[in-house]
């Protein structure tokens, strides 16, 4: 009888164990498949904040690619994680700001088959975390629907004139095609037009961002700057390679001091100069950071846009293999772009690579073109 009892208890334990594991797995699976996981409301009464909002900042941090690099001490670092940490620091240290952070992550699986959410959203207001939510990114064309919707859901509605700033960090954003931008999703496309559409969604309640920072390689082209310029007054971008996580954002940590007079253009020049100094100190490759005054660059854009666009149309017809052989170059190297307005409205911080074939290039126009 005792033996039978023991066997029953033992069997019951097995059943309980496996039921528990099954239940835990089912919970995880269901939570990972849920389209609308509840927002983790960290602060209960965000609306009742007594501090006014002066700055509204949006970070999009693309982390679904190869963002590994080594710092000067030889430490292995993921650039998107570094940028996320910096964005959170900025959010915590600015009591008069609201900060939206969207971290676009690689796909991950539970039990090899079940996809987990590939985006994480943080919303800070008055230096406090208000919401933290996992979400699904667009699975095909990247319209960034969630990001725009979350922004409008949480943003502080105020009669005050806010200083609106948008920052994007990621690899070079293609000007056409765009397949393969996300390492995890070969079919998903993302182009500069998609980003511009997103900016349009963000700016539906105000005319333009005061400042846009494009932390990617080869962002300073006539097409890209023109697209972003439709939704931004001032843009910081790099016409050359921009080494992963070396954009210097520490001046964002004290906006009340650094943007006290609301002079965004001067602030942009400060950010660009500090980034240039940080980059030149840490990397041996080419460094270029440019501030574009969107109003002042229009005469140049108007003159070269058709030319640049026709180049893009030609490139669109090429195979990916052929396209990979077409190099970028300084627009000033192409006769059609050598016009008097090329330097209008651009503040260029440039240092050639310390080694390699471009080490003797002393100046840069601030504009990137295709050698085609």
């Amino acid at each position, binding site marked *: 009888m005792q033996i039978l009892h023991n066997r029953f208890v033992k069997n019951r334990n097995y059943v309980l164990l496996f039921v528990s594991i099954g239940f835990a797995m089912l919970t995880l699976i269901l939570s990972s498949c849920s389209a609308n996981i509840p927002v983790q409301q960290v602060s209960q009464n965000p609306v009742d904040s007594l501090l006014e909002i002066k700055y509204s900042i949006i970070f999009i941090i693309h982390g679904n690619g190869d963002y590994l690099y080594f710092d000067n001490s030889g430490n292995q670092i993921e650039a998107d994680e570094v940028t996320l940490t910096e964005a959170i620091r900025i959010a915590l240290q600015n009591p008069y700001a609201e900060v939206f952070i969207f971290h676009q992550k690689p796909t991950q699986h539970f*039990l090899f088959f079940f996809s987990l959410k590939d985006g994480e959203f943080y919303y800070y207001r008055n230096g406090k975390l208000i919401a933290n939510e996992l979400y699904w990114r667009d699975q095909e064309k990247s319209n960034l629907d969630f990001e725009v919707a979350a922004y409008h859901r949480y943003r502080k509605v105020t009669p005050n004139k806010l200083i609106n700033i948008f920052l994007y960090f990621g690899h070079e954003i293609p000007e056409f095609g765009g397949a393969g931008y996300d390492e995890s999703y070969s079919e998903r496309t993302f182009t500069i037009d998609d980003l511009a559409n997103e900016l349009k969604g963000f700016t539906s309640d105000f005319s333009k961002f005061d400042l846009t920072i494009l932390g990617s390689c080869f962002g300073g082209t006539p097409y890209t700057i023109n697209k972003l310029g439709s939704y931004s007054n001032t843009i910081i971008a790099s016409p050359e390679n921009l080494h992963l996580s070396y954009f210097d954002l520490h001046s964002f940590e004290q906006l009340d001091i650094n943007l006290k007079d609301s002079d965004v253009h001067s602030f942009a020049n400060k950010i660009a100069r500090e980034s240039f100094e940080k980059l030149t100190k840490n*990397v*041996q490759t080419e460094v270029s950071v440019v501030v574009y005054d969107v109003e002042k660059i229009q005469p140049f854009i108007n003159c070269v846009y058709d030319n640049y666009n026709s180049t893009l149309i030609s490139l669109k017809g090429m195979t990916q293999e052929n396209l990979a052989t077409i190099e970028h170059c300084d627009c000033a190297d192409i006769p059609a772009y050598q016009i008097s307005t090329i330097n209008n409205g651009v503040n260029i911080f440039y240092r050639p690579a310390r080694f390699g*074939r471009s080490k003797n290039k002393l100046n840069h126009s601030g504009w990137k073109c295709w050698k085609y």
Partner: protein
Amino acid sequence: MKSIIAFVSILLMFVLVIPANAGGKEELQKHFKNIANKVKATENATEKREILNESFQKMSKALNTLESTGMISDKDQVGIDGLKATMQENQDDAGKNGFERVSDNQLNNFSDYVVQNMEQAEMITISLVSLLLIIILVVLLV
């Protein structure tokens, strides 16, 4: 009972921990970072130069060997051509082929340049399989 729980727990740990996909580009970056570390650990400029030249030659040889197998796609070929051009440029800077060579006191910085150039390189056209084959060949070609 305890042993079963322990077994299941370990099994679950293995299943739940998603293995990190160490991409081929990452391995290449690590390879060049190791070369840079070796260069910096050496005081003698001649030895520094030898370490660098040997690594560029090995890489070029690995790329040629991979090409000669005839197993690579047109897409991979474009990426491999780009890598070969980068290796050629590095060898030129190191003083091969009659180019002005990097001065002795700049060799540490040059080794960092090689790593950072690789970090920035767009090797998206090279498949993971080909990148891993390159690494294997670099290791084998001692």
